[in-house]
């Protein structure tokens, strides 16, 4: 371990020193990949849900590849800062990023300054999905989205908690279609969302998945994914309710554009091992995060199709990037 660590430091020093001169050289395929430690960027702060899953995945992959994987947090702009740094890294498989795919398939439609497309990265696979949904208090008088709409028509001026412009758009589209009068309360982060729901400050809120930790206090009225949630299979998706607003978010590995195909494959295979790893399952299981592995090819397809689909949804709703 100590030798590895020291070599890591030296390697980093060397790479810092040479970064300028080597940046432009195209990467050559490497038979011995990996023969030194890999740096894994995470675009959120240490300790967050995605960071945790990323660290657990890094542990599995590191055992599989026989080299340490150092997790480095680069928070900022919902992951766009880390993604930009990844773009500038050498495409040799020694700098990778574990993150939610929203940076590419959602953020560009909301933020003018983020203009990533699926072609800006190589995709080594996705391992988990986020169970986004519309949630309410357990004791609410309605049980599904149709019930909520009926209730909301009787109660104009109700409050809805929104974490992001995407959450705002979802409610605005429903309100537009059904003629609801809604007050959208801006919330800052998942913790505040839980607070607002449990404290009865809002009637309904969009949760990124954290609600499944509060099964006794909250219930979901509609899943906002294209699939029904594995932890809540009885709740219909928003598409099933007839709104066509479902957007899937997954977490997985981004690689710099131009990373050799065999390295992409090696990393994709290593990531696949996480599906059956007991520690990884424990980490995701305790937070009710479903494991849904997509390999490199499927991940690329997923990115291309969701990029087009989400763009269409936002354009239809008249949401302009800010």
């Amino acid at each position: 371990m100590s030798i590895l660590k020291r070599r890591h430091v030296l390697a980093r020093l060397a790479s810092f020193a040479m970064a300028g001169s080597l940046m432009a050289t195209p990467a050559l395929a490497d038979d011995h990949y990996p023969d030194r430690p890999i740096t894994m960027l995470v675009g959120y702060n240490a300790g967050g849900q995605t960071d945790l899953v990323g660290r657990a995945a890094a542990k599995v992959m590191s055992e599989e590849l026989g080299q340490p994987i150092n997790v480095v947090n680069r928070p900022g702009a919902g992951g766009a800062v880390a993604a930009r740094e990844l773009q500038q890294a050498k495409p040799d498989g020694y700098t990778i990023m574990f993150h939610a795919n929203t940076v590419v398939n959602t953020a560009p439609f909301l933020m003018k300054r983020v203009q990533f497309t699926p072609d800006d990265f190589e995709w080594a696979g996705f391992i988990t999905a986020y169970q986004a949904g519309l949630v309410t208090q357990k004791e609410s008088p309605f049980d599904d989205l149709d019930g909520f709409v009926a209730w909301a028509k009787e109660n104009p001026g109700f409050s809805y908690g929104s974490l992001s412009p995407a959450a705002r758009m979802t409610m605005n589209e429903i309100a537009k279609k059904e003629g609801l009068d809604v007050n959208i309360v801006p919330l800052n982060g998942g913790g505040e969302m839980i607070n607002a729901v449990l404290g009865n400050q809002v009637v309904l809120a969009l949760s990124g998945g954290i609600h499944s930790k509060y099964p006794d206090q909250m219930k979901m009225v509609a899943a906002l994914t294209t699939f029904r949630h594995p932890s809540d299979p009885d709740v219909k998706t928003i598409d099933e309710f007839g709104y066509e607003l479902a957007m899937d978010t997954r977490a997985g590995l981004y690689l710099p554009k131009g990373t050799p195909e065999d390295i992409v494959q090696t990393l994709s295979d290593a990531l696949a091992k996480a599906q059956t790893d007991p520690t990884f399952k424990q980490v995701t299981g305790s937070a009710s995060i479903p494991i849904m592995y997509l390999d490199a090819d499927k991940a690329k397809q997923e990115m291309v199709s969701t990029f087009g689909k989400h763009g269409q949804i936002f354009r239809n709703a008249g949401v302009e990037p800010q």
Partner: protein
Amino acid sequence: MRRANVLSGAALAVFGLLMLIFVIPAQIDQGPPGMMSPRLVPSLMMGLTTVLAVLLCATNLRSVEDDDGPISRAELLALGKFGVLFAVAYAGYALIGPLAAGVVILLGGLLMLGERRPLYLVLLPVVVLGGTYLLFYRLLGTPIL
């Protein structure tokens, strides 16, 4: 303090006006109708700063009490030295690596502040850099760079 107050008041008033007239309109969009404008709070604060800064200027112009300036030459010199030190350290970071930057800050700082004893010049950077390495890489197991 009187002169310093007049000058800082004038500088702040100019800063506030620049922000109000140029920077805030250019850097903050008006925002959709029906919501509090994103410009509201920054504009309020800059307006308040400008008014108070003018007030500070005016009250001090009228006051007769005067004494030495609050900032000594030595302090300004020290701030300038810090600027040079960090500039060299950044060059070291960009050209060689983080370790070089650390050495520049420690060794350069010592030299700049007048330390000349060779023992301290060697010992301090070694102890601090070594201690940092031990703390983060060994004890906590977190590579910070």
